[in-house]
């Protein structure tokens, strides 16, 4: 995996230490820009290239295509995409999947969700996560899930 240094002055703190700061900013109603780490959201978000713009989602029910930052039971923070939502009386569960992955992570609760991606920044330009063009590409990528592992294998060559 291609590991590049963060931007000059980047916060070199693990997410667990960063989270109080992140939560404080989100609680103030501020958006937070974070460098994307890891390539599990490739090709949509790439390590070393993209930053993600996060905002508080205040208990809003997420749907297909939304990208929450959530906390796993082991304390790890992850940014993946909602591919399924199961809603029963009084309870909501999400199934999460990285765009470069094909193993689903089911049963994520709304309580685990810390923030939601509202946009991303690439080469200094900001893009919205709600634009129809973006949503269409997300949908196409989901249709291609049965062949995703091969697409990713080909794509990986370009990021090595």
């Amino acid at each position, binding site marked *: 995996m291609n590991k590049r240094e963060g931007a000059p002055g*980047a916060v070199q703190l693990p997410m667990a230490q960063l989270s109080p700061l992140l939560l404080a900013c989100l609680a103030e109603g*501020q958006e937070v*820009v974070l460098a994307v780490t890891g390539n599990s959201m490739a090709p949509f978000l790439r390590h070393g290239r993209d930053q993600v713009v996060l905002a508080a989602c205040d208990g809003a029910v997420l749907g297909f295509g939304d990208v929450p930052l959530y906390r796993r039971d082991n304390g790890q923070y992850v940014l993946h995409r909602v591919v399924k939502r199961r809603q029963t009386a009084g309870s909501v569960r999400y199934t999460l999947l990285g765009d470069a992955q094909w193993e689903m992570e089911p049963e994520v609760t709304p309580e685990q969700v810390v923030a939601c991606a509202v946009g991303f920044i690439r080469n200094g330009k900001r893009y919205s996560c709600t634009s129809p063009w973006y949503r269409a590409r997300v949908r196409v990528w989901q249709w291609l899930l049965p062949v995703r592992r091969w697409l990713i294998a080909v794509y990986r060559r370009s990021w090595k």
Partner: protein
Amino acid sequence: MKIKSGFVLRQVGEQYAVVPVGVQTVDFRCVITLNETGGFLWQQLQEETTPEAVAQALLAEYEVSPETAAADVATFVERLRENRLLDE
């Protein structure tokens, strides 16, 4: 001298981070992190003060020589000045 308004110092584990307030978007790539001493100096400089007074406060709080304290304060103040974070 004093630090410009519009920033808040938050403790993050054993470190401190300086975050802008009142802006819509906080870029975490530009957040300033400070160690414990840096956090202490930042707190001192939130009120109108002088480098001498800050060095005195540093001496009272930490076991350092007056020369080291004065030099450390001067370095810190210079960094703030470079980044245009000081009102003088």
